[in-house]
C-alpha cells in the first residue's frame, strides 16, 4: 500500500497494461549459471541450458560454441543426453563417447567435435521437465558424483529463475482477469445508465445516482443491479424477479 504523498504503486490498470516480460533478465541469469558451471566444474569444456521453446528444444544460454554445436547436433538428430534428460526428467551421463552405444548418430557428431564425455541434468518447473543443463568435456570420465551434484545444484537455480518468470506470468493473468471483470462491471453500469437516461429523461449522473439508490435499497451490488436493469429492458420476456 502506498503511503501519503506517494503515487499508487501496484496493480493499477496502467501498470498492468504497461507490463513487459522479464525474459532479458532471465536470459542473463541463465547465462550466468552456465558460465558459473563451466568455471566451477573441473574439466568442463562447455556448459549450456536447453529449454523446450514452442515444443522444440533450443539452447537459451551457452558458455561457448563447442557446447552450442553439441546441442544443435542433438536437436537435429533427435537423440543424445540432453534430449533424453529433457524428455525423461532424469540425469543422463555418458562417461566415454568412444564406447557409448545409446545414440550412434550423436556419438559420431560429438566425436567429430572432440567431445569425450557429457552430463545433462534435467531442469524442472513445477515438477515438469522443461529442459536440461548440459556439460561437455574433451576428457573421458570427466564427470562423476561430485560434478553431478554441483550440476544439479546449478540446474535447480536455473529452474528457480524460470519458476519466477512463470509465476510472474501467472500474476499478469490474474491482473488480466481483474481488468476483465472490472470492465464488464463498468459496461453493465453504463448500459443501465443509458437505459434510465432514455426512459426517464435524466442525466447520466442522475441515472447513476438512481442505480446506487436501488442497489442500497435492495442490498444488491451495483453491478448486479445494473445487470438486472439491462436484462429486464431487453426484448426477451423476463424469467426471474425483476429489478423494477
Amino acid at each position, binding site marked *: 500500500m502506498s503511503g501519503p504523498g506517494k503515487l499508487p504503486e501496484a496493480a493499477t490498470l496502467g501498470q498492468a497494461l504497461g507490463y513487459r516480460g522479464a525474459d532479458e533478465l532471465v536470459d542473463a541469469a541463465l547465462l550466468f549459471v552456465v558460465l558459473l558451471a563451466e568455471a566451477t566444474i573441473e574439466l568442463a569444456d562447455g556448459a549450456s541450458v536447453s529449454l523446450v521453446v514452442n515444443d522444440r528444444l533450443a539452447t537459451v544460454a551457452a558458455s561457448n560454441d563447442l557446447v552450442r554445436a553439441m546441442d544443435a547436433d542433438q536437436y537435429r538428430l533427435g537423440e543424445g543426453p540432453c534430449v533424453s534428460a529433457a524428455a525423461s526428467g532424469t540425469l543422463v551421463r555418458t562417461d566415454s563417447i568412444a564406447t557409448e552405444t545409446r545414440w550412434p548418430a550423436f556419438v559420431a557428431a560429438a566425436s567429430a567435435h572432440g567431445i569425450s564425455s557429457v552430463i545433462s541434468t534435467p531442469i524442472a518447473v513445477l515438477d515438469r521437465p522443461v529442459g536440461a543443463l548440459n556439460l561437455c568435456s574433451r576428457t573421458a570420465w570427466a564427470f562423476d558424483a561430485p560434478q553431478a551434484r554441483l550440476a544439479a545444484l546449478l540446474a535447480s537455480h536455473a529452474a528457480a529463475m524460470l519458476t519466477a518468470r512463470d509465476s510472474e506470468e501467472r500474476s499478469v493473468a490474474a491482473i488480466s482477469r481483474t481488468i476483465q*471483470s472490472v470492465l464488464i462491471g463498468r459496461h453493465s453500469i453504463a448500459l443501465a445508465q443509458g437505459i434510465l437516461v432514455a426512459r426517464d429523461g435524466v442525466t447520466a449522473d442522475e441515472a447513476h445516482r438512481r442505480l446506487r439508490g436501488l442497489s442500497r435499497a435492495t442490498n444488491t451490488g451495483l453491478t448486479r443491479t445494473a445487470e438486472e436493469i439491462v436484462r429486464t429492458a431487453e426484448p426477451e420476456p423476463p424469467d426471474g424477479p425483476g429489478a423494477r
Partner: protein
Amino acid sequence: MIANASRPPESTLERARIDVGLSQNELWVRYFGLGGMAMPIEVEAFLLGLLAPSAHDHEVLVHALNERFSELGRNHPVPHGDGHGPTTLPPWGAQPPDEP
C-alpha cells in the same frame, strides 16, 4: 501537497478505507469498476483531503466502501451524501431502504 504521514487520517472516506482493509489501489479499482472516472492519484488526493471530490465521485467512493462493508458482513456503512445533502431513493418502486 505532501501530507504528514504521522497525522491521523482526517477524511471519513480514508477512515472507512482503513477500517475495511482496502489499499488505496484496491479501492480505486472498485471505484473504477462502479463507473468512477477519476485517476488513482486523484482518488488518493480525495482520501487525504488534499482535493475535494465532486458529489458524484464522493458518492461512488462511498458506495464502493459500503459494498466492501457488506462483503465483510458488517453494518456500519459510510454515511451517504456526506457534505452534499441527503441522497434520495429512486422514485420508481424500490423497496424501503435499510438506511435513509
